């Protein structure tokens, strides 16, 4: 490997690629060539840095300069100033929103200060398409250690001792899951990686697969060794083309190096993986539905038991783990169970990756130790609420989770605390809402999602969720009654108790948790017919303030239904019965004479 004195790391995650990071990498290379610096500086395309809000990111080491929102045309300046002359391009540095100071070193950015990166250890650090960089960072050393120095049971014991729990949402102890699968005798067993990430706004698994695909392959092989499986399958959604491409490249490189295939590292252990594509059905994240989908059947869940560990793919014992769970495994074997269990809380060890989204300043991907509070995540790492608005709620756990409010801000995040607070960890989506968000609409949004995604096998989920959604629709359109809110609560409880799988059992959660924490808002919708956040269109009342109206007629001309009348130069009026609440008049009025209630 040539000795470069400078590495330019360009984010090649889906988000930054969408903002032309490939062209940026190309331009950087070209400029380097133009100035004859090919032997001094190297451009590397990496996985996600997590700071998606300010992408595309270009990070220059060794001086750790973190350039944000780089455009292809900035490349010339970066090379001629920074790489050639050592002068940082200040205008591209991150500006601290509170002090307005430019921060060049990412270590000093609030966004990174509280993070500990285990699952994301290689994301934004190595080139995911180059196995050599993974090996240089101790890649496949955990597999080598397991195969040559440890028995399968010893590996399982390490994982058990580390306290690692499933990161897909359930939080089931991973070591125990492996032990059960290992205990079942069969001629063939399977290791399955669940990469069917489906929560709205979640992109943790995608980023790991895009940024560090080898860690997943390595962990799957370790798992195969433990449970006695020689075949691994990654079930990944077809909407993740980049993750698929990088996984394929990684698997091909492994085969070339003999890290997949027969007799890995001379240990006599055979293992290989293949990819199966999901069509993007949310329910296929549920392990039994996922297995049926892989078998070519409809992606519908079945009753457990039998658990996949007893009878899974093709009726054989199968161990299914989530991407992020796997990503932790090599690190645990290399650094030890004690190290891992020293991070986190009493019952939730290690770290968790979250995808921060919604009304938050620093949208992005973060990894924090379990036990970090919501306040630290939202206000310190996330940089607080956008546009100085007030925090209202944070939704965790996706469509299966619930909303947490201000009073939960100081709750340390772990599996059990979130459940106690009426939400759940889920796979790690975290959507932040501000004062302008209507909680009834939020519940409706999630219900819409579950109604769409219900497989239709059991009545509580198929019919029940539809009814919940209809009632929410009714409340949002101003026709709800206080009894409807009670119906929502009752029906929600019944669905939770009677649905077949995890999807149905958790789908009423967004409704129930918003009723619990924002009852007043539901009440305002049904009794006063007001949407306090001003989001529900049907509950808006448009009026014209006579003292401000100049009678310019701009509003009446813009009204698509002719609901506004009045003489020229005289105050106009809106006919509330005709008005469809489209807001066209509000946008047209130059004198702020349209009042919205």
């Amino acid at each position, binding site marked *: *490997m*040539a*000795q*470069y*004195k*400078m*590495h330019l*790391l360009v984010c090649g995650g889906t988000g930054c690629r969408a903002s032309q990071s490939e062209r940026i990498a190309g331009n950087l290379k070209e400029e380097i060539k133009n100035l004859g610096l090919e032997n*001094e500086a190297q451009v590397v395309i990496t996985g996600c840095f997590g700071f998606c809000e300010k992408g595309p990111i270009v990070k220059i*080491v*060794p*001086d*750790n300069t973190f350039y944000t929102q780089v455009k292809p045309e900035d490349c010339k300046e970066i090379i001629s100033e920074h790489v*050639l*002359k*050592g*002068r940082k391009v200040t205008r591209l540095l991150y500006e601290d929103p509170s002090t307005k100071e430019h921060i060049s070193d990412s270590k000093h950015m609030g966004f990174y200060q509280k993070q500990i990166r285990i699952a994301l250890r290689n994301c934004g*650090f*190595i080139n995911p398409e180059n196995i*050599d*960089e993974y*090996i*240089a*960072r*101790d890649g*496949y*050393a955990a597999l*080598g*250690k397991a*195969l*040559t120095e440890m028995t399968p049971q010893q590996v399982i014991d390490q994982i058990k001792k580390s306290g690692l729990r499933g990161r897909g949402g359930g939080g089931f102890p991973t070591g125990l899951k492996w032990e059960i699968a290992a205990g079942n005798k069969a001629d063939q067993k399977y290791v399955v990686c669940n990469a069917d990430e489906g929560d709205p706004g979640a992109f943790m698994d995608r980023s790991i697969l895009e940024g560090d695909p080898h860690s997943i392959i390595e962990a799957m092989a370790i798992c195969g060794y433990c449970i006695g499986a020689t075949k691994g399958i990654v079930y990944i959604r077809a909407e993740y083309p980049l993750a698929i491409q990088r996984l394929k490249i990684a698997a091909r490189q492994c085969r*070339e*190096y*003999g*890290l997949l295939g027969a007799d890995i*590292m*001379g240990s006599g252990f055979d293992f290989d993986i293949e990819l199966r594509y999901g069509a993007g059905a949310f329910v296929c994240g549920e392990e039994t539905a996922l297995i049926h989908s892989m078998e070519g059947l409809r992606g519908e869940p079945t009753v457990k038991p039998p658990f996949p560990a007893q009878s899974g793919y093709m009726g054989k014992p199968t161990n299914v783990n989530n991407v992020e769970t796997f990503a932790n495994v090599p690190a645990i074997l290399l650094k030890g169970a004690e190290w891992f269990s020293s991070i986190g809380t009493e019952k939730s060890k290690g770290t968790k990756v979250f995808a921060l989204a919604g009304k938050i300043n620093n949208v992005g991907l973060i990894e924090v130790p379990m036990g970090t509070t919501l306040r630290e995540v939202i206000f310190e790492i996330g940089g607080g609420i956008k546009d100085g608005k007030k925090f209202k709620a944070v939704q965790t756990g996706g469509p299966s989770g619930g909303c947490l409010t201000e009073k939960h801000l100081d709750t340390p995040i772990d599996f059990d605390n979130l459940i106690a607070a009426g939400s759940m960890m889920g796979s790690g989506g975290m959507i932040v809402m501000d004062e302008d968000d209507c909680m009834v609409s939020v519940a409706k949004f999630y219900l819409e999602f579950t109604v769409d995604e219900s497989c239709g096998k059991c009545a509580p989920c198929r019919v029940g969720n539809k009814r919940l959604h209809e009632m929410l629709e009714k409340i949002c359109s101003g026709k709800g009654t206080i009894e409807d809110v009670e119906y929502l609560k009752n029906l929600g409880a019944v669905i939770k108790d009677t649905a077949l799988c995890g999807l149905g059992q958790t789908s009423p959660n967004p409704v129930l948790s918003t009723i619990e924490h924002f009852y007043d808002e539901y009440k305002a919708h049904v009794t006063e017919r007001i949407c306090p956040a001003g989001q529900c269109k049907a509950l808006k009342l448009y009026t014209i303030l006579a003292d401000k109206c100049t009678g310019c007629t701009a509003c009446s001309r813009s009204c698509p239904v002719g609901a506004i009348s009045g003489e020229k130069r005289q105050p106009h009026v809106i006919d509330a019965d005709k008005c469809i609440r489209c807001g066209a008049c509000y946008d047209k009025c130059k004198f702020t004479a349209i009042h919205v209630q």
Partner: protein
Amino acid sequence: MNKIKSIDDLRKMKQDLESGMNIREKSNSPESLVQIRVAMATCGIASGARTVMNTLIEKIEKDKVQAVVTQGGCMGYCYAEPTVEVRIPGKDPVVFGYVDSKVAIDIIEKYIGKGELLEGIIPVNYQTINEKK
């Protein structure tokens, strides 16, 4: 492509590949490393700063010195270019002037390695705004 047939193959491969990643690994904990900054403004480059920098990088790689080499802008000592600033953790930074390849190697062997002072140190006669706070 050579196959990895044993754990020793893997270890050997890692050792060979490691140095290519060193620069990135080091950037994870710059505070605990010796930081060497070469002034690479026009005047520095014209006086041979680029060669000096390459010598420094090769030398720390060869001797496995825990140091990171970065480049900086003009430090103002144009008369003494090329200049190199060395910051050993816990010590005040020291600026060396008139550095050529020979001095560069002395800096690493004698100053960083043994703590001996060398000829050609420029007394620091300024404060930066960061230190003033």
